[in-house]
């Protein structure tokens, strides 16, 4: 998905980043690979939008106000939640995969779950 972005000032960029972050939170409410991919794309947008904020601040040399600072702090809080969410989700998925591997293939001699072979079996004739 191609997104074109043009921002007039740093406030506008920050507003767009916060809007994207809200969409990410909505998407992650339901686990699906599509939602996660779309979230990753939106997060890349957030990164670009924040890059724009930094560039515009440097270019204009303007001093951000208190409201601007609180906007950044709110984004930081949301990013902290997301970081924790992804870390815990990784543990959850790893646990699931371990359980599936153990149920599907049993355990190795060293007591670890057997690796999971997910490719389809092929038979060649002739």
């Amino acid at each position, binding site marked *: 998905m191609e997104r074109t972005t043009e921002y007039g000032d740093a406030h506008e960029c920050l507003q767009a980043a916060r809007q994207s972050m809200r969409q990410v939170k909505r998407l992650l409410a339901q686990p699906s690979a599509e939602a*996660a991919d779309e979230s990753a794309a939106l*997060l890349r947008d957030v990164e670009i939008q924040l890059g724009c904020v930094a560039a515009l601040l440097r270019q204009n040399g303007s001093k951000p106000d208190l409201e601007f600072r609180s906007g950044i702090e709110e984004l930081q809080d949301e990013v902290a939640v997301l970081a924790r969410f992804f870390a*815990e989700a*990784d543990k*959850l*998925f790893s646990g*699931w995969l371990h359980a599936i591997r153990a149920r599907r293939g049993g355990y190795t001699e060293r007591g670890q779950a057997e690796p999971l072979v997910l490719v389809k079996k092929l038979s060649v004739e002739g």
Partner: protein
Amino acid sequence: MGNLFTSLNSTSQSLQAFEQAMDVVQNNVTNANSPGYADQVPEMISQDFQAGTGLSGGVQETTQDTRNSYADTAVQQSMSLQGMYQQLQTSLEPLESVFDVSSSSPIPSALNQLFQSFSQWSSQPSNASYQSAVINAAQQTATAFQQAAGELNSIQTQTTSDIQSTVTQINQDAATIQSYNVQIARNPTPDAGLSAQLESTLENLSSLTNVTTIPGLGGMVTVLIGGQTPLVIGTQVNDLQAVNDTTSNAGNPGAPPTISIVDSNGNDITGQVTSGSLAGLLNVSNTMLPALIGGGQQVGGLNTLAQGLADSINNVLAQASTTSTPPYQAGSPLFTYNSSSPAGIAGSLAVSSTITGSLLAAADTGPPVVANGAALTLAGLDSSNPGPIDGQGFTQYFSSMTSAVGNAVSNANTAETAQSQLVAQAQSLQQQVSGVSLDEEAVRLVQLQGSYDAASKVVTEINQTLQTLMEMIPTD
């Protein structure tokens, strides 16, 4: 004829099997929204047709419980962590009102007024209304400390009461699980309804404390706390108790003892309680509150602050004189507190009953003698460098306590928000596992993990960008 009867018998059994299968489907539909219910999958198994040995062919229905123990465990573990963070949120919220750094908050406001009154008094040490303003401001400061101590003690009392009621709830859930085990022992036929009730109880128990469930014969479960201490084994229950550890506050008179969780044999299992609301409450009661108001071996930051403030001001006054010319008259202490109970200093902080304006010593006897020297020292005490308490000024010390509480609240909020989403994910996966092949599930999980990993890396980069932005914004 033999073949005809065998065939009729086979057809009859097949119909019974399909009827049972329809019952299972009906049961699934009815219980779709029952908490803890797992789909029962009807399985048709073809029977060998061997008339000679009495096997009659046809199909036989066996009900396969799709309950996945890992799915259930994942939900229970997520709920256990969520329970802890939710409890931390609830218990820490009232602390924020006590440790509020804003200028309208009682302690910072009182400290500000007290040092302003010293400053005003230093301009005219013999001015009776300025002396009176110092005593009034000191009175407000003592009241602010007493109120804060009272509120913290009330939070401590509430937390202790919450621990007792949580332990009671845990014991009630354990008794419920034990009664399920008794029913299963009497009738080992799989019962989806009973299994759903059991799962629902286990989820509730998980939100209270960290439990491990080990499935046993016929569907009976063994429940352990912290993976070690049995709570329910078969038809036996090991009741828990919350007790005051009377040895914990030895040598710290007035400090509340720490609370321990013991099993029915009197073994201390507090260290094994690592999640669930009980862990959150124990953390608040045994770690966070003692650091603020004292408990166990700790004096508590608020008491340290109250004592530091009183001692610093009283010392300056004791070394100063009420007159700037001989004979010098040492000043009287402004504050008093109960020194025999270090954990109760903030609560007992008061203005000396004997102090009057004329007993406030403003003069530094030097040499050289400075008529308002002591008053000036007092006015600058809060901003002196290094400060009187661990190198910090009084307001700064209070701010660091406020900051610690604020961070704890913020961490609890962040963790709770993330954990709520994870509980939703774990529950979603738990529901989706029914009827899905393990291979398909694994492929889906690998895809999901990969996508999440990609998003997670971007989050790390965004965090760095935000940090850069914060550094670009001036703090003043």
